[in-house]
């Protein structure tokens, strides 16, 4: 700690702080326009000038000057106030005073400082700028006439998002922020630039002219898309969520969000939300009362036993999932599952066996504290973009080494010094085994490894996985495998990350065990910056696992579908899932749901699955609920309702509770009561309560009981003349819910088929050509997207879309062999 004096106050601050930071942590406010705590100091705006006595009273920028012992600083002498006034006069010289129509009004740093420093006249005069306003995209408006050139947008896009869409162009008075060739913005549309803009230069277009900033009520919540667990502030007016509000102090991510988090909120107040319960009468769904609908469902469930089954989306709260399970148990059925039954297997089977706990023994906070990251699939950026930002920052700011094992290249491969090993699709487990084999052969294993149960079996099982043997089937050089194994084993701290989800059937229990073996062999577990992080797809996927909402004694999702088809399952209750789109093999799923006698769907929207139902119950979004979500790293976070229920919709908590009561059971009164039960029973949740979770949430610790498990490998046999289709997530989407978020749909409105330049040339395909993709189970039509990241012979398609869905082609195998024709 360093001792210094600021404004006659004796204060201390950590070494390496700047004057600005030191003042801030001691509650002294220094005005500034170009500073954001996530970004490196820049010193562009000159508003933060202070006087330092040791520098003979010279005015220095507080944001770039490091503190030294005994420094005597004055932040608001008459001279400084005069200087700041002049800075504001100079800024206002070119900045248009169009505050009445500017959406930033009330939240504008320049406006607030002008008011604070009483700049009511200007001694200078000059013309305003006449830059053209960029309206070319539907999400971000760029009005460079209002820009004060603080550079925050360009810096956040480079330092955190690592995209570099914006930069300073030209110089002197002509300087402006823009894209290459002064063209229009064409980027990831995460809106980070909008969030940090101190003036109205960069605005969220969906929020334009919707409300004045001071008319909004800010409600804190947790994002309802992926499993990262980002905190959100929802801007609410008249029971409508109108925007997300940036708060740099929120969450581990300091308010940083991705496209779907920032711009995907529209589904909450969408016109397409279901408002009333619907009951099928004479073949069509007609409006009904809640009583009527719930009576029908209760009558079907009562005493149904194992002929009833349930599928839930892991977007429900922990409390709702517990209640749903209880409802099924009251009905006498143990048939309940989520995420197609296989998408949670990495946790519920893989980690459960390897670590003795169905959770990841690492947190997101370990990413920046590690020395080496091993990322399985570049898709990790697309599935969890804010974790992707953490990786960007680790690599760019902390010098963490990045190694990627993937079936295609991606944004992460573009990071400085990133090593990407592109293997043939489906061979990842063999490659990871080869890494383990190299670690054993090169005597890189930790001394403790041999004592872990299963060591001898693993050693024996890995005999055939020499790098040379795996090189052939994986398309990698044996030397590359050996180098990666050495790098991983020799790094002091190393973290492995991999995504799981409906679209990643190859990321199964065996993959989880294979990576767990690596960590156990080298002892990279249980210390800060080391471990394995399995990134589950949805906002409460980890919670669904922790609540035990998956098949243990009953049927799993796949078997439930088979049961529907065979007639063994007569009543199916689907809460929030949309199997018709999100489960593989659409024809089979549709046929099964057609066959089942009674289908109940509770959902926000009339999804493809809901349209087949006999009873549809309008459910609530996360913004209307109270409960808890558990993120991929088991951070348990409490959410409170930000708005009242839309229409007649009810939360799934109310729906399940009322059904339990109708079946004669005892329904808990509030989510808090259920959370009390969770805290008493779920492993790691002991001692938690809504009060103890607070605003930041709390980690449910993972107790590891290590064991080596031999992963099964299935060799993917190439099919002659066919191309390998792999499925996955698009950056802008998560599950099927984001189809109802306008922001993501503006940027990525439909499915597509990504293919390599070589294959495109061979098949004479041009960008945006409509292609017919056919496999053994069916065909669909998708637009071509030709990208340099795809290896020859490999195709990629995202799975989120109901129209021209890839699950008409995709059988659920990690690799589907298809033919592509124009």
């Amino acid at each position, binding site marked *: 700690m360093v001792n210094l004096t600021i404004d006659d106050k004796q204060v201390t601050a950590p070494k390496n702080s700047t004057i600005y930071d030191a003042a801030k942590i001691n509650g002294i406010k220094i005005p500034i326009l170009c500073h954001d705590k996530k970004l490196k100091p820049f010193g562009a705006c000159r508003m933060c000038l202070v006087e330092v006595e040791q520098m003979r009273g010279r005015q220095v920028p507080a944001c770039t000057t490091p503190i030294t012992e005994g420094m005597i600083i004055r932040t608001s002498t008459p001279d400084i106030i005069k200087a700041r006034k002049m800075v504001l006069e100079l800024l206002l010289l070119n900045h248009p005073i169009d505050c009445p129509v500017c959406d930033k009004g009330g939240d504008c740093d320049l406006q607030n400082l002008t008011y604070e420093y009483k700049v009511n006249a200007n001694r200078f005069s000059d013309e305003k700028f006449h830059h053209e306003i960029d309206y070319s995209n539907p999400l971000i408006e760029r009005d460079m006439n209002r820009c004060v050139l603080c550079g925050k947008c360009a810096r956040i896009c480079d330092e955190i998002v690592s995209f570099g869409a914006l930069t300073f162009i030209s110089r002197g008075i002509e300087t402006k922020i823009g894209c*290459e*060739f002064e063209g229009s913005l064409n980027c990831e549309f995460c809106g980070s630039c909008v969030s940090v803009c101190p003036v109205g230069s960069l605005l969220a277009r969906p929020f334009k002219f919707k409300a004045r900033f001071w008319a909004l009520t800010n409600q804190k919540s947790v994002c309802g898309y992926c499993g990262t667990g980002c905190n959100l502030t929802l801007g609410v007016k008249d029971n409508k969520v109108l925007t997300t509000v940036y708060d740099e102090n929120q969450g581990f991510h300091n308010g940083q969000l991705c496209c779907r988090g920032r711009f995907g909120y529209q589904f909450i107040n969408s016109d397409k939300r279901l408002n009333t319960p619907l009951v099928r009468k004479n073949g069509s769904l007609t409006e009904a009362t809640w009583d009527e609908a719930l009576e029908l469902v209760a009558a079907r469930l009562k005493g149904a036993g194992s002929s009833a089954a349930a599928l839930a989306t892991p977007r429900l709260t922990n409390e709702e999932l517990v209640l749903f399970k209880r409802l099924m148990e009251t009905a006498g059925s143990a048939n309940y599952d989520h995420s197609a039954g296989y998408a949670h297997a990495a946790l519920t089977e893989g980690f459960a066996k390897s670590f003795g706990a169905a959770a990841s023994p690492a947190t997101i906070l370990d990413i920046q504290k590690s020395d080496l990251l091993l990322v399985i699939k570049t898709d990790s950026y697309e599935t969890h973009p804010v974790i992707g930002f953490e990786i960007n920052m680790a690599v760019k700011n902390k010098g963490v080494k990045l190694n990627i094992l993937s079936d295609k290249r991606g944004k992460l491969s573009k990071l400085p010094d990133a090593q990407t090993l592109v293997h043939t699709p489906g061979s990842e487990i063999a490659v990871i085994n080869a890494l383990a084999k190299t670690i054993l052969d090169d005597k890189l294993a930790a001394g403790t490894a041999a004592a872990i149960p299963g060591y001898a079996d693993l050693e024996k099982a890995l005999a055939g996985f020499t790098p040379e043997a795996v090189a052939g089937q994986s398309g990698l050089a044996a030397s590359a495998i050996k180098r990666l194994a050495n790098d991983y084993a020799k790094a002091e701290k190393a973290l492995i990350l991999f995504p799981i989800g409906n679209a990643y059937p190859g990321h199964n229990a065996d993959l989880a065990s294979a990576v767990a073996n690596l960590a156990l062999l080298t002892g990279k577990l249980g210390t800060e910056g080391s471990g394995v992080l399995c990134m589950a797809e949805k906002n409460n996927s980890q919670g669904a696992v922790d609540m035990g909402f998956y098949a243990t004694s009953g049927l799993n999702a796949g078997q439930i579908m088979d049961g529907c088809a065979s007639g063994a399952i007569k009543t199916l209750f689907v809460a929030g899932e949309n199997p018709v789109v999100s489960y593989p093999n659409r024809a089979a799923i549709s046929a099964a749901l057609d066959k089942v006698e009674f289908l109940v769907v509770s959902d926000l929207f009339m999804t493809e699955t809901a349209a087949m139902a006999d009873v549809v119950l309008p459910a609530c979004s996360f913004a209307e609920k109270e409960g808890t979500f558990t993120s991929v790293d088991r951070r348990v976070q409490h959410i409170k309702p930000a708005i009242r229920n839309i229409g007649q919709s009810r939360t799934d908590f109310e729906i399940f509770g009322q059904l339990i009561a109708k079946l004669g059971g005892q329904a808990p009164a509030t989510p808090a009561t259920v959370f009390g039960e969770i805290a008493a029973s779920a492993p790691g949740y002991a001692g938690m309560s809504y009060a103890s979770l607070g605003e930041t949430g709390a980690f449910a610790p993972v107790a590891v009981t290590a064991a080596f498990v031999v992963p099964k490998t299935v060799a993917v046999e190439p099919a002659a003349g066919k191309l390998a289709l792999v499925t996955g997530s698009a950056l802008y989407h998560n599950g099927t819910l984001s189809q109802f978020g306008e922001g993501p749909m503006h940027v990525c409105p439909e499915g597509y088929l990504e293919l390599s330049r070589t294959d495109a040339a061979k098949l004479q395909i041009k960008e945006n050509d409509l292609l017919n993709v056919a496999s053994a189970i069916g065909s669909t039509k998708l637009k071509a997207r030709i990208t340099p990241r795809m290896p020859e012979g490999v195709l990629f398609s995202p799975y989120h879309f109901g129209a021209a869905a890839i699950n008409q082609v995709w059988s659920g195998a990690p690799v589907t062999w298809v033919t592509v024709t124009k």
Partner: protein
Amino acid sequence: MNVHDSHRADDRHRALERVMQQHRLRPDSLIEILHAAQRQFGWLDRDVLGLIAARLRLPPSLVYGVASFYHAFRLEPPGRHRCTVCTGTSCHLKGGSRLLQQLEQHFGIACGATAPDGSLTLENVRCLGACGLAPLIVIDDEACPHASFGPVVERLTASLDGEDTSP
């Protein structure tokens, strides 16, 4: 583009690639590489900047930002002839700036711009380091010391008229 042109383009790309390799594709050698590219191509077009960005793993916006910052880099094709007027302190005092104005008027081109037919680019430079020759003008890499309006116009007109415009 005919066969001859495409061959030349390939040579130029190869030369640029050689320079980038000499710099080991280091992003911090961007400015040197931009100079090399401009030497090869005469100016920096979208394709060349895009290529450099991709090879150095830099965002295209940043490469464009750097190229637009320095006046040394041309982002538009130069004319077939080039007239550079020195407006450094000595040349300015000796009437260089006035000369530039006169030339702008005479040829109807603003300083820094190229005639619509692509025949002539008129530009200024801050100092050529030959103050003893003020006012100094450089026409197509050839210095015209102690320049004055009449002779310069004559010289330029001769160059423009003497152009071989046959296909």
